[in-house]
């Protein structure tokens, strides 16, 4: 899933404090699963904005809506009858949400309520970890099913570097060295020879480096 975190309430308040009617829009997709952008969080953020308004001696009407998904035009339509009533909209979806809303409702002022972090998953309750960098050419099978592009701080394809220490990355003792995991796993499986092979320079054209990406499925597009 796409993992996101809420922006500090102070930052969101600064964005919308001059508006009288604000609509908070959540998303039932990834951000609901990682507990930052679902119906519950829409309610909490709306309440916080009302309290902030009160504290600052102003009245702010805060509306609430949660869409099935904010990355799909079909569901973006769900707010077409109400969005015009508001001076500002705070989207608490991933970065796709505020953009789809901005594209569909060009007259509305749309603000992002979340910081989109990465593609990953929950490794324990309340802890999410990055797993995919979206490079467009998956090669995890070369590395014991673990991705060094997303999980090595230097995206090394021929690691581990000299900074790997006690299973941790040189940048922080909180960060696992994925190359340590890769080496140990393949050694245990007796597949060390695979790691002794030179991995050539990656072709990054399929990643974001090749420019903004579009995917067209001809059979679905027509």
């Amino acid at each position, binding site marked *: 899933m796409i993992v996101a975190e809420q922006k500090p309430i102070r930052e969101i308040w600064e964005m919308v404090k001059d508006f009288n009617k604000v609509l908070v829009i959540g998303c039932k997709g990834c951000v609901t699963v990682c507990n930052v952008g679902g119906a519950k969080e829409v309610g909490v953020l709306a309440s916080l904005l009302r309290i902030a308004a009160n504290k600052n001696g102003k009245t702010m009407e805060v509306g609430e809506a949660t869409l099935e998904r904010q990355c799909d035009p079909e569901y973006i339509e769900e707010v077409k009858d109400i969005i015009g009533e508001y001076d500002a909209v705070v989207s608490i979806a991933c970065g796709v949400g505020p953009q789809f809303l901005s594209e569909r409702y060009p007259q509305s002022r749309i603000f992002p309520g979340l910081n989109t972090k990465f593609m990953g998953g929950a490794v324990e309750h309340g802890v999410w970890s990055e797993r995919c960098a979206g490079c467009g050419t998956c090669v995890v099978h070369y590395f014991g099913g673990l991705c060094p592009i997303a999980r090595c*701080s*230097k*995206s*090394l*394809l*021929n*690691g*581990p*570097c*000299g*900074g*790997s*220490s*006690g*299973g941790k990355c*040189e*940048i*922080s003792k909180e960060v696992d*060295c994925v190359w*340590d995991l890769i*080496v*140990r796993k393949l*050694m245990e499986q007796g597949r*060390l020879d695979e*790691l*002794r092979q*030179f*991995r*050539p*320079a*990656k072709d*990054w054209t399929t990643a974001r480096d090749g420019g903004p990406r579009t995917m067209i499925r001809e059979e679905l597009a027509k």
Partner: protein
Amino acid sequence: MSEYKSGSNLEKVLKAGHFAFTGECGPPQGANVEKLREKAQHLKGMVDAVNVTDNQTAVVRMSSWAASLILLQEGLEPNFQMVCRDRNRLAIQSDILGVYSHGIRNMLCLSGDHQKFGNHPQAKNVYDIDSMQLIHAVKTMRDEGKFLNGEQIDVPPKLFIGAACNPFADPFEFRVYRLAKKIEAGADFIQTQCIYNMDKFREFMKRVVDMGLHEKCYILAGVTPMKSVGMARYMAKQVPGMDVPDSLIKRLQGAGKGKAAEEGIRFAIEQIEEFKEMEGIAGVHLMAIEWEHRVPEIAERAGMLPRPKV
């Protein structure tokens, strides 16, 4: 056709079978050319080549190629270091052509410390290619006359290719294989991380020799004299992939007040003496960090002078 790959002094010294001795010089955090020239003068005649670090520990300094050119002017042979952190493959290849055109003949290929360590942690990290791929690229440019995209180079750069090896990083069991991989990718010589844990290094070298890697590549053992107990403690605790045994810290402490630096130098000299005899070791890389002025003394006491002329 030359009998040498690059014709650098370091290559000639190693090929002639001499025990090589390389030094290191960190460029200034500014355009202080005089300071750089002064540091260089301490190393002149003391070493076969001088590593010029590339924004080491991710702190911005005068570029390694520019500082290398200044060393050339001073009559020293630079070992130009390049990290993959700051350049994509376009910049890497053009810098290689640039340094070669100006007379640089040695190059050390590194991944580089992550920018999080340095003084611009906000920077975007590049890592378009890794150190292994960099080694391979320099070799392909030299031996096949081709860029990374396969296109022909109009006068290929002939560089003596160096790589780093840290026997003290984890997982230990894999380190010798990674070294083998670097040699296969094209490394002509290796400079190791600073060695303090001699037991572990002996074990590592045994594996290297068992695999015959020392016959395919020149291995220079990394030595950094400890200047103080504080430095030893810092290296032990704060520098990832550094292995400083407690026994060494105790030895420095035991030397008494004001004598730790001398004890550090003594330890370094003992190490060099052992490396001269150690199977598979072709030389020593002395990284006297901000201690260039002590290099002549260390070189003299370690019996490394005079340096051979090949």
